[in-house]
């Protein structure tokens, strides 16, 4: 699908996931023991053959830039296209920060225009799924619609998609309206916020919206024009998660302990690529006791680990117990410590015998680099 370019818009709402987004955007939140959130959408794109991806950031991107590096793991270290990270431009004479993302799209419209692809896959990073985008592309090309919007019909009973865009769709799959998912209905059509459209149309929308000043946000600019556009929808049926709150982050992580979901997210339509760390094998000793967990490379496990996600380079010393917890990379849990319902951010050190226990519905988050 060399006719498509990808645009990932990182203007994402962090208000309910602040505990792990102090120093990073949602896109670079560590997840699944070795990934960052953005790895999933990036891998989906490259697995569909997209070779030109632009990421529009909102600043605060050192962790993201460090993760993406030269984009080699995604095979996007290409000579002329590949990956391009676009930061908001701030003129030294500016005295106020402009809100919204449409300004940044406008400032970089020549980059979009100059790309040789005809179509754009416009999306965000905070939805996790493993999709074959080629099918959606073909659906769009065969249809006569202006925009194809991808969604999944979800069960609202576990409240995983509160605050997401909720689509009302007519019998011909066409979009009728978009609302805010309150979780009141039994089922909702949740938008993946993934739009397929002609590049020309995207450029028109940006220019028209900026000149009219009718929206600070690109998404709003599209919605404002809904009555003039034919918007079709494409249904996705695989595993879908949404990283917009700390609860969803925790529950999604725990989902991966279900082998079916693990395989669905990591293998179903292609592999998920991420930054390489050269970690050695994970070592289990004679005192280790492991059950129902996923463990990344480079760990040394001497204690007991149950129902947990253990990221690269974690050490769990003898006698320590980890239950229902998420340990981000390079955490160290010393002898006889006890952790239950805890999220340790990167490089946390838990001292000997320390007991930490969170609530199952509201896990307790320990900040990066904390020593406790």
């Amino acid at each position, binding site marked *: 699908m060399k006719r498509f370019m990808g645009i990932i818009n990182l203007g994402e709402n962090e208000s309910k996931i602040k505990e792990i987004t102090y120093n990073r955007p949602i896109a670079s939140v560590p997840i699944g023991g070795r990934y960052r959130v953005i790895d999933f959408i990036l891998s989906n794109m490259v697995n569909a053959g997209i070779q030109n991806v632009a990421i529009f950031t909102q600043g605060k991107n050192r962790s993201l830039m460090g993760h993406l590096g030269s984009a080699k793991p995604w095979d996007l270290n290409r000579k002329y296209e590949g990956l391009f990270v676009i930061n908001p431009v701030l003129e030294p004479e500016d005295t106020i920060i402009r809100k919204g993302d449409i300004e940044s799209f406008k400032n970089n419209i020549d980059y979009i225009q100059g790309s040789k692809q005809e179509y754009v896959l416009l999306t965000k990073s905070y939805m996790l799924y493993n999709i074959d985008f080629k099918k959606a592309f073909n659906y769009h090309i065969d249809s006569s619609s202006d925009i194809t919007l991808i969604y999944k019909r979800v069960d609202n009973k576990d409240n995983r998609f509160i605050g997401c865009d909720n689509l009302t769709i007519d019998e011909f799959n066409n979009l009728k309206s978009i609302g805010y998912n309150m979780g009141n209905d039994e089922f909702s059509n949740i938008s993946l916020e993934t739009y397929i459209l002609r590049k020309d149309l995207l450029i028109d929308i940006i220019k028209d919206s900026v000149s009219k000043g009718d929206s600070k946000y690109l998404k709003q600019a599209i919605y404002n024009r809904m009555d003039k556009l034919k918007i079709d929808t494409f249904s996705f049926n695989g595993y879908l998660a949404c990283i917009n709150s700390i609860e969803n982050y925790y529950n999604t992580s725990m989902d991966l302990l279900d*082998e079916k979901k693990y395989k669905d997210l990591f293998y179903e339509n292609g592999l998920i690529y991420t930054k390489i760390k050269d970690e050695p094998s*994970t070592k289990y000793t004679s005192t280790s006791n492991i059950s129902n967990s*996923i463990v990344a490379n480079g760990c040394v496990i001497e204690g007991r680990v149950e129902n947990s996600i253990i990221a*690269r380079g974690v050490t769990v010393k003898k006698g320590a117990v980890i239950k229902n917890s998420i340990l981000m990379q390079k955490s160290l849990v010393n002898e006889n410590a006890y952790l239950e319902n805890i999220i340790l951010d990167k490089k946390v050190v838990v001292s000997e015998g320390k007991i930490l226990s969170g609530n199952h519905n509201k896990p307790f988050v320990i900040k990066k680099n904390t020593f406790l």
Partner: protein
Amino acid sequence: MIKRKKEMIAMLLAGGQGSRLKSLTKRLAKPAVPFGGKYRIIDFALSNCSNSDIYTVGVLTQYHPLLLNNHIGIGSPWDLDRRDGGVSILPPFVREEGGRWYKGTANAIYENIEFIENYNPEYLLVLSGDHIYKMDYQELLEYHKEKGADVTISVIEVPWEETNRFGIMNTNDDFSIYEFDEKPKNAKNNLASMGIYIFDWKKLKSYLIEDEKDKSSSNDFGKNIIPKMLNDNLKLYAYSFKGYWKDVGTINSLWEANMDLIRDNPLDLYSKEWKIYSKNPISPPHYISKEGKVKNSLLNEGCIIHGDVKNSVLSPGVYIGENSKVIDSVIMPNVKIKDHSIIKRAIITSDVSIDSGSIIGKENSEITVISE
């Protein structure tokens, strides 16, 4: 060709079949045999080069090089993809006079004199691609310079009862070598050659050219070049190496060296100071189900464990089915062991699938090797 002077470049002998590894090397060169869960044997020599700031490495290949070439590529995993120098794969080739295979270790270097001269080095480091160890070749070079040596050979103390398996260096008090004893019955010394040499390049070159003219020579460093140099009273010194070193030339030593990694041993793969690099698999963290048990073992990316793993080394992508047991074994990449099987004291090679209910290997017996 970029011609830029380098003080020392390395030539890595990786052409050998390793016929004592039997079915393990039926279709790949010995240096490409998987080792220690994450690695191939050659990774150790390549990582040592990179960690020693030696960024120009010629790799001499001959036997089944496809996988080895694919593994090395241009050396990115070892940071050896350099603008000047980097890693070069050097297969035998055809000249105006016809093609010549490499006849012996010395001949392989002789055939690549042109390559070496491009870098105009003062010193040549000659390495084997089939040893497991960590070594700073810069320290070896410092020693070589201090001694004012023509040749420095790295040696290791071996138990006296094993001296008959090695090439033994008989040395004076100042570590100058006066005699080379190949597999002596009654050894005078227990310093065995590790197959690691630093040569004064100009001197070596003239010996290589001389040796090539001698039709009766087997063109080997140990058998021909070193004895001739000793005979000519060149200054040969032994450098006594103290760390872990293992020649994994037999099924037994390969199995032993894998088991060494589970025990506490001086080859610390977890230190950040001297990392061993390899090509990294694209796989999620490993998954251990509720029923899975792991003790005293090494696990890697993409493994799925429903059974019981004890005292074993598992490469990436290994599947262990329910009620299966893997004990004292080495399992190479992407092996699938179905349910209800028992594997003991075995090496299972890459991509093999073991049927349900299989029983492989026995305690207190020879190592069983299963290959495709």
